[in-house]
């Protein structure tokens, strides 16, 4: 019974870590894509 509980927690932790890494990767991807799509305009400032 304890083994099953330990295994359940281990899997939950692995799933949580995977989700965390994927979310972090998405943040980086969206940031880079935004910069690329904005191109040089990101530095434009109104006069």
């Amino acid at each position, binding site marked *: 019974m304890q083994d099953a509980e330990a*295994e359940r927690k281990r899997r939950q932790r692995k*799933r949580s870590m*995977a989700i965390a890494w994927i979310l972090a990767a998405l943040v980086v*991807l969206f940031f880079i*894509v935004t910069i690329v799509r904005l191109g040089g305009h990101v530095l434009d400032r109104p006069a």
Partner: protein
Amino acid sequence: MSDTTVQAIPEKYDVALGGDVADYVALLKPRVMFLVVFTALVGLVAAPGTMHPVLAVAALICIAVGAGASGALNMWYDADIDARMARTAARPVPQGAITPQEALTFGSVLAGFSVICLGLMANWVAAALLAFTIAFYVFVYTMWLKRATPQNIVIGGAAGALPPMIGWAAATGTVSPESFVLFLIIFMWTPPHFWALALTRARDYERAGVPMLPVTHGADETRRQILIYSLILAPLGMVPSVMGFGGMLYTVVASILGAFFVLFAVDCYRTREGEAADRAAKHLFAYSVLYLFLLFTALLVEQGFGINGGSVLPLSWPL
């Protein structure tokens, strides 16, 4: 236990434990994802014009995730069939590692996410094509054709043939005759590829109640159909050369590969008895994978490295 009953869930896959990360990865059908990404990359590189490499990679990630979502939704719906076939019985849903509800949710979220992201990062033509591909694979192939007709993989093969068009659309925002030819090549390649596999696994399909051609029309008719499709595929592989986006390298590779495809199909057609028949079908199946990979690699090399008048670099660095 009879052959037709769903396998008992092993203790180590107690549903209460929840699935492991590897089980969720398996839901995405990684090998299919690789083929989808590869053919989409060829479509993207072969397309005229330039695309920023970051956006190209982002588009390919979206297409890969969309393909994975299709796989997860397919495994959700087909869990009963998968449990009865030796090739698929170890998949996460029939094993009980992931519940059907989890697979459905996982696939649906990824499908929506991939389509929206592709629309935002590339364009909405590519996103619409990706959405159509996922919907066609899930609703038309998985839910309808697969259990209804021996033409299941012929018509359903359209879903697997669309990725080069999606890649092309991601780069150009359009659908063109050239990208449609790439679609047609994979579309005509799919029947001999899958029927060669089905010839060796007819009993499996029969047990699962899937009306594959060898089950409904017999092995001889399947071999005849394989030969017909192969005879259409070989010259079709040359069409990119005729249209001008396949150069000398592609022409040579496509003609040699096409000739060998027909030879393997003829061997499969003529060898009908015993282990030799099984071996001929397996050889054709293995060769069909190599055929598509090398054919598209030739196009990728030509277009990617600017042979045949293509751009020296297919992707631009505008920053």
